């Protein structure tokens, strides 16, 4: 790789690190501006016990010291202990939740990408035909329907008629959460693929290939689709961010014990270390995903200027 690309890479990685540090800092100090400590519960505790607790968790030190301690702990992947779920480390809770969420989110992303690209290409190749029209109507509608609406309707229609599909440990239980999460990105990718495919199909080199008598399938798959997928690649970062936030809703509707539910619960329970932990974890995940797609994009499309 040339030095220009190396410079770009370095810049992007530094920016990603700065963003993560920014999120940690903002979350940390914002959490500490909230009045009321973590030990203010239903049962009042004596001042002595409170002091002992604060000493144990390092809360008696100045804020700035606590911040650097927290940063150091994070560096060693020590997210601290959950305040409400006794005996659980935050890291355990996060990883347990993430295992569930990643299954659903990963499959949803995969389905969205595969189906979206297929449908989009069909629509572009059969432009203005009935396939194209119906695909476009459906995908336009799906882009406008919020995820929670799709989720609740799936719940309504299928679970009530086929209650066997209920419940997450059973493999069938994953079907509807995955469907709910994949509809929006699928519709979006369909529209994106269609418009970029139409753009590519109108270019001169495609006409050249056709006039040379290259097989139609080969033109579509090898010449057109490859280039048409570049804009789709840029959507992968935002899609994963959407799926992460979308899982907040899906996990609520379908009662999935995932990381988003842990996040929402930690907020309603005011479990400060868990709030910090999940925020930092999810933010890092999103920033990393964006970083990877950005770099991939530059590698795939050499025409792009690095400056």
């Amino acid at each position, binding site marked *: 790789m040339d030095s220009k690309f190396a410079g770009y890479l370095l810049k992007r990685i530094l920016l990603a690190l700065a963003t993560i540090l920014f999120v940690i800092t903002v979350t940390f100090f*914002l959490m500490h501006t*909230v009045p009321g400590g973590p030990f203010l519960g239903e049962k009042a505790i004596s001042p002595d016990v409170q002091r002992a607790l604060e000493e144990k968790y390092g809360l008696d030190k100045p804020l700035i010291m606590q911040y650097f301690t927290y940063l150091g702990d994070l560096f060693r992947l020590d997210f601290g202990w959950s305040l409400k779920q006794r005996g659980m480390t935050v890291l355990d809770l996060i990883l347990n939740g993430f295992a569930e969420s990643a299954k659903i989110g990963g499959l949803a992303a995969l389905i969205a990408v595969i189906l979206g690209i297929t449908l989009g290409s069909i629509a572009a190749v059969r432009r203005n035909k009935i396939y194209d029209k119906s695909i476009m109507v459906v995908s*336009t*509608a799906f882009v406008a329907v919020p995820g*929670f*609406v799709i989720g*609740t309707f799936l719940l309504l229609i299928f679970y009530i008629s086929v209650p066997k599909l209920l419940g997450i440990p059973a493999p069938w239980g994953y079907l509807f959460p995955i469907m709910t999460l994949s509809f929006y990105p699928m519709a979006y990718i369909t529209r994106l693929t269609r418009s970029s495919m139409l753009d590519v199909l109108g270019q001169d080199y495609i006409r050249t290939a056709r006039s040379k008598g290259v097989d139609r399938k080969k033109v579509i798959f090898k010449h057109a689709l490859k280039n048409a997928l570049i804009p789709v690649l840029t959507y992968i970062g935002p899609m994963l961010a959407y799926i*992460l936030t979308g899982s907040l809703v899906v996990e609520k509707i379908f009662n999935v014990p995932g990381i988003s539910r842990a996040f929402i619960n930690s907020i309603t329970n005011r479990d400060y270390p868990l*709030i910090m932990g999940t925020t930092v974890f999810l933010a890092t995940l*999103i920033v990393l995903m964006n970083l990877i797609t950005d770099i991939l994009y530059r590698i795939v499309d050499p025409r792009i200027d690095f400056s």
Partner: protein
Amino acid sequence: MEKKKTKNIKKNPFSLHINIDKFAPATAEEKAQQEVMREQVSFFKDGINRLKKNKIAMICFFVIIAIVLMAIFVPMFYPYKYNQMLGVKPGVSVDPTYSNLKPFQYGETEKTLIDDGEFVFPHLFGTDEHGRDYFIRVIYGTRISLFVGFFASIIVLIIGLIYGSISGYAGGKADLIMMRIVDLIYSLPDMLIIILLSVIIRNSDLKLTGIFARLGPNMMGIFTVFGLLYWVTMARLIRGQILSVKNEDFVLAARSIGASPTRIIRKHLLPNCISVIIISTALQIPAAIFTESFLSFLGLGVEIPMPSLGSLAAHALDGVISYTYRLVIPAIAISLIVLSLNLFGDGLRDAFDPKLKN
């Protein structure tokens, strides 16, 4: 014809003029060619004409207008209030017959009134578990959604406009630093920050007054986040537009006669970016409505008893089998609003900036 024209002009044999025809007076026919046959159309009229031809966009436009008018005017005439529990009257024990009415059913005291021959306004969508009229709650929810969408995009517009145009016009180091800040904000996970901020605003000692108190801290969180985070896309867009026009000659002309940067941006640069500004503002509204309904659904939206389409849908989940319509109605309302705003925004884009199409 050429010959005729040059009849009275004699060509000097020593003249170096190559073609004397070019200096002949124009005939009436030629003069007529210069006349403007069509009425001159301004940029806006042209765009609006194109928009009018787009059937889908026009239908969506009328749907939006109808929804907005309903959201504004129906609460003025409707006999019930969004937070009025019909079964509860001061000094009387709670009348349970008002709770969970199906559409067009009436409570006990209303039935006696009807038997007496009086007119009682029907509960179009029934009532909820607290005996509140569901129709007016849906209307209020729509109102909240539109309010959030509109104000959020105004906030985004103002901040993005100022930031983007300064960054684009200043250029150099200022631009570099401002754009790095934008990059940083752009990669923040917005939903997490919204949720965090709403928790913090809710728990802080901040005193809210007026309309803000009624909307509650979560809404303030949403607005704050829109103000803090969502303007970056707009700023980037406007910066790009400014960059593309700031080296034009008319800007140089304005600068040479001593126009201040503010004046150049306001009077010369921004009017040239107006189509992009309008389009992206229009498309920002449905995005904001989407976000609001999402947060309300998670219970992080408006404060009870204020309804929002998202929170209505979330509450309806509890009794979804017996009262399916309570879920279906807000769900349809929100999809309709977002869909028609999206399609209208697309129509606006096609009409005012055909380059952006596809």
